[in-house]
């Protein structure tokens, strides 16, 4: 129903309209029936039109005076009664109209209609973002750079108003609404085929779980990105495979795992996220004893990794308790980690590393400063919860800073905006140290220190020539795309990293025949990217790259043969 707003107004105005009609008609009838006297002393009656005219300006308190002749006392008596009933009725009606227009339900309906229309008008792929937070704002910006539209819902009107003041690259339809209701998700266009994902990063993780389930039932093709740090909820989401879960603690623990196992992979990862280039030194965690402040979700996630590699570690936490075996073997101490004496007792002078991971940024900073004083050489890993304090943390000279909000932003925007990059990242995280090390060397030698990561899809509107040749049944190897156009024997500075074909992932594809619908991730320089795109979309360049000779121009040939034919007829 599109005219809900109109119905709301009409329903609210029922009684006032009745009051106006009744008071007007009573007043008019009286004016017509009561005899008056004209300027010559004759008796006359007002016509209905006279009465309507008079009552109209009387009720609205405009008051043009007595018409058509001055009233007699009988008429004045009736008019003085009418003034009260009609004026009151009129003002009541006006008041009701104003209150109906400013009514909350009405405003909501109007906003909702506009929101729905805007969502319906989106033709490109879009993502639904639930809640306007600092993190989501960054994600929206990243999605916009990848040319993905965004729809935003928040239950707080102030936040929506605040968002409207922000400058965005694309128009974002916004609505104030409860994201936990199916109706709201419907309005946000979750059933549409170009809705690619939904981002639920609420602090209340049950909300995220609920939204994951709702989305799965409403439209299983929509990718859900949900935050979950609670093991039970994460497990039930993962078991049912309804959403992609972001657990920043797990993410970081995994990185520690990777850093211990194959430090070069982290260099690759940082490059993929665009944080640094390939020349960065791989990070070798120093060997020795580690002190970990905070035994919450973060500490527990790290514990499994440290146990896996048999690294000596001690947890310090003032609030939580660990299993008694841990207290007995000295790997848990219940104390305030911000205390100098405690740190000395635990043995900070002999420790190799300190991991500061409480959920309070100020505590974290203060622990870092104390620890630096006691042992200036210690390797420090610190957790930063919100990005607002980023400059302070940078100034603290921390070896490895782990920003929780940054993880949400990176993970969510990568999974939705660059699914191919995301797949590649997942694949390389499983690789061994030697493999990643040689890949980095290969990239540095063949491509660049900081190669671009570009995706090329084999479909008509992006790779015209390739698509049509493949449709004709030609066999084209992926290596054709890598030829240098100046000299076919040389290769340009590009390396295909991943080929994705109907659920099949081929890492570093070489000598593989392309197919329509393939998605390829290239690491390349800017110039080589232009060459690749040229080969893929221009039939002449493709022909040259494949056979090493120029292709004859079919249009010119047809033109010549046509001209020849015409001549023959003449």
């Amino acid at each position: 129903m599109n005219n809900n707003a109109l119905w709301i107004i009409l329903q609210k105005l029922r009684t006032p309209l009745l009051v106006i009609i009744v008071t007007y008609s009573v007043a008019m009838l009286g004016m017509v029936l009561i005899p008056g006297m004209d300027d010559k002393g004759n008796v006359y009656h007002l016509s209905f039109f006279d009465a309507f005219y008079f009552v109209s300006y009387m009720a609205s308190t405009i008051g043009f005076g007595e018409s058509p002749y001055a009233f007699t006392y009988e008429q004045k008596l009736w008019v003085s009664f009418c003034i009260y009933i009609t004026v009151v009725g009129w003002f009541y009606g006006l008041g009701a109209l104003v209150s109906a227009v400013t009514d909350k339900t009405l405003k909501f309906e109007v906003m909702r209609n506009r929101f729905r229309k805007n969502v319906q008008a989106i033709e490109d792929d879009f993502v639904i973002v639930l809640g306007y937070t600092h993190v989501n704002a960054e994600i929206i910006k990243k999605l916009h750079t990848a040319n993905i539209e965004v729809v935003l819902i928040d239950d707080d009107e102030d936040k929506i108003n605040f968002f409207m003041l922000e400058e965005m690259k694309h128009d974002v339809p916004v609505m104030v609404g409860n994201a936990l209701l199916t109706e709201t998700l419907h309005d946000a266009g979750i059933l549409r085929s170009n809705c690619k994902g939904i981002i639920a990063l609420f602090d209340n993780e049950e909300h995220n779980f609920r939204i994951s389930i709702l989305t799965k039932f409403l439209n299983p093709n929509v990718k859900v990105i949900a935050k979950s740090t609670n093991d039970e909820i994460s497990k039930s989401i993962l078991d049912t495979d309804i959403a992609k879960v972001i657990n920043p603690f797990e993410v970081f623990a995994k990185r520690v795992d990777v850093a211990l196992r194959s430090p070069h992979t982290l260099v690759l990862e940082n490059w993929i996220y665009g944080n640094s280039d390939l020349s960065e030194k791989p990070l070798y965690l120093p060997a020795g004893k580690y002190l970990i402040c905070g035994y919450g979700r973060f500490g527990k996630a790290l514990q499994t990794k440290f146990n896996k590699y048999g690294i000596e570690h001690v947890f310090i936490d003032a609030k939580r308790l660990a299993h008694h075996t841990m207290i007995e073997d000295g790997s848990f101490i219940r104390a305030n980690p911000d205390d100098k004496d405690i740190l000395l007792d635990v043995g900070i002078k002999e420790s190799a590393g300190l991991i500061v991971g409480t959920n309070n940024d100020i505590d974290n900073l203060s622990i870092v400063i104390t620890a630096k004083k006691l042992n200036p050489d210690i390797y420090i890993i610190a957790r930063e919860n919100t990005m607002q304090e980023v400059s302070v943390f940078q100034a603290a000279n921390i070896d490895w800073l782990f920003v929780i909000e940054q993880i949400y932003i990176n993970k969510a925007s990568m999974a939705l905006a660059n699914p191919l990059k995301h797949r590649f990242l997942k694949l390389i995280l499983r690789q061994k140290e030697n493999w990643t090390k040689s890949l980095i060397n290969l990239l540095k030698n063949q491509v660049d220190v900081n190669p671009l990561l570009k995706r090329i899809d084999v479909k008509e509107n992006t790779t015209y020539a390739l698509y049509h040749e493949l449709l004709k049944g030609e066999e084209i190897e992926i290596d054709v795309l890598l030829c240098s156009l100046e000299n076919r024997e040389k290769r340009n500075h590009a390396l295909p990293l991943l080929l994705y074909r109907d659920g099949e992932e081929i890492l570093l594809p070489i000598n593989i025949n392309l197919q329509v619908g393939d998605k390829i991730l290239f690491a390349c320089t800017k110039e080589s990217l232009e060459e690749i795109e040229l080969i893929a979309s221009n039939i002449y360049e493709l022909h040259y790259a494949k056979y090493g000779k120029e292709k004859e121009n079919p249009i010119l040939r047809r033109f010549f043969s046509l001209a020849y034919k015409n001549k023959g007829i003449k």
Partner: protein
Amino acid sequence: MNLDKVISGFFFILAMTINFGFFYGDIDNPELHSVYELFMALVVSLISTILKIGDKTQLGAVLLATSLVADIQLIAAVTVWTVTEYLSIVDVEAFAAIISLSGGALLANITSVILYIGETLKSKR
């Protein structure tokens, strides 16, 4: 018994009966048609329109539509009457237009009452 139903039924039927009262009589004889009746027909018709607002069912929508038709025809009749009177056009054609407009409104009112009766009979309560 529901007081709301009594009131709305009263106004729906009153709108039809008053309208009939005005319409009945020779079409070209002004003496047989009272202006007061026309006025009351319009007022009652407007009131019954307001009473029909708010029912979002299919039948409610049709009832509202018939009422709006009656209102428009009666307002047209009143306007024609006023204009002819003030421009002093005493014309059989104009008067016949007034009566036939009210006749159209009468048909709309009859439709509305028939629908209303139908709904009442269908109701199980």
